[in-house]
C-alpha cells in the first residue's frame, strides 16, 4: 500500500512570496490533515478535512494560509504572502476516518519550507 505522498520535499522562498504544497493521501482515506511543525516542536494542526469538507481550521492563519481538497482526494496548502515565521516542516496526514473513536494517522515525509 502506497503511503502519503507530499511534494515538494524542500522549498526555499523569500518573504512576501507565495508557495504551494501538495498532498496525496492513502487511497480510500476519508480524513486529511495538514500540520505545521516548527523545528524542535510537536506538530500543530492547521486544518482537517473529512472528504472534501473542512472539519477544523481553527488554527489556520486565514489571512495568509488557504487549503483545499477538491474531489475529496488530494489537497493543496498555500501560503501567500509568506513570513519568516512560516519556516517549518508542513506535514500531511490521512486516516480512514475521524470522530470520537481512536484515529490512526499516517503521515507523509513533509515539506521543509525555509523563508528568507
Amino acid at each position, binding site marked *: 500500500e502506497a503511503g502519503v505522498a507530499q511534494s515538494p520535499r524542500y522549498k526555499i522562498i523569500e518573504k512576501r512570496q507565495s508557495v504551494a504544497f501538495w498532498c496525496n493521501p492513502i487511497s480510500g482515506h476519508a480524513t486529511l490533515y495538514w500540520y505545521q511543525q516548527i523545528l524542535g516542536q*510537536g506538530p500543530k494542526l492547521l486544518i482537517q478535512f473529512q472528504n472534501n469538507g473542512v472539519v477544523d481550521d481553527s488554527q489556520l492563519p486565514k489571512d495568509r494560509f488557504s487549503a483545499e481538497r477538491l474531489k475529496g482526494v488530494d489537497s493543496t496548502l498555500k501560503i501567500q504572502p509568506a513570513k519568516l515565521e512560516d519556516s517549518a516542516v508542513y*506535514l500531511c496526514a490521512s486516516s480512514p476516518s475521524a470522530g470520537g473513536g481512536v484515529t490512526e494517522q499516517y*503521515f507523509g515525509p513533509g515539506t521543509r519550507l525555509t523563508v528568507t
Partner: protein
Amino acid sequence: TQLLEQSPQFLSIQEGENLTVYCNSSSVFSSLQWYRQEPGEGPVLLVTVVTGGEVKKLKRLTFQFGDARKDSSLHITAAQPGDTGLYLCAGKPSGTYKYIFGTGTRLKVLA
C-alpha cells in the same frame, strides 16, 4: 489552550541504558498515542492507549496510560542506537475529535 508537556526535552544516553519519557497534561484524554519521528520523515505511530491504567508493551518499549487518563509514560529498556529519534505523545481530549501533539522528547542513543 490544552497543552501536553513532555519531559525531558532532550535525552542523550549510552547504548544499553534504560530511560523513561513522560507526557503530562491537565486535560483528560479519551485516547493517547505515542509516535516516533526520524529526521526527514513524518511521525510513525507506535501505540494507542485508551483505558486508564493500561499498559502496553512493544518489544523493549513499555507504554502506560495514567489512571486518570491525564498522563502517560514511555519506558525503553536497553536502548539501542536505532531508538534515536523524536518521541511525540498525542492526546485526544474527551469530547473532541482531534489529537493534540506534545512538545516532543529528542532521544539520542550513543553506540
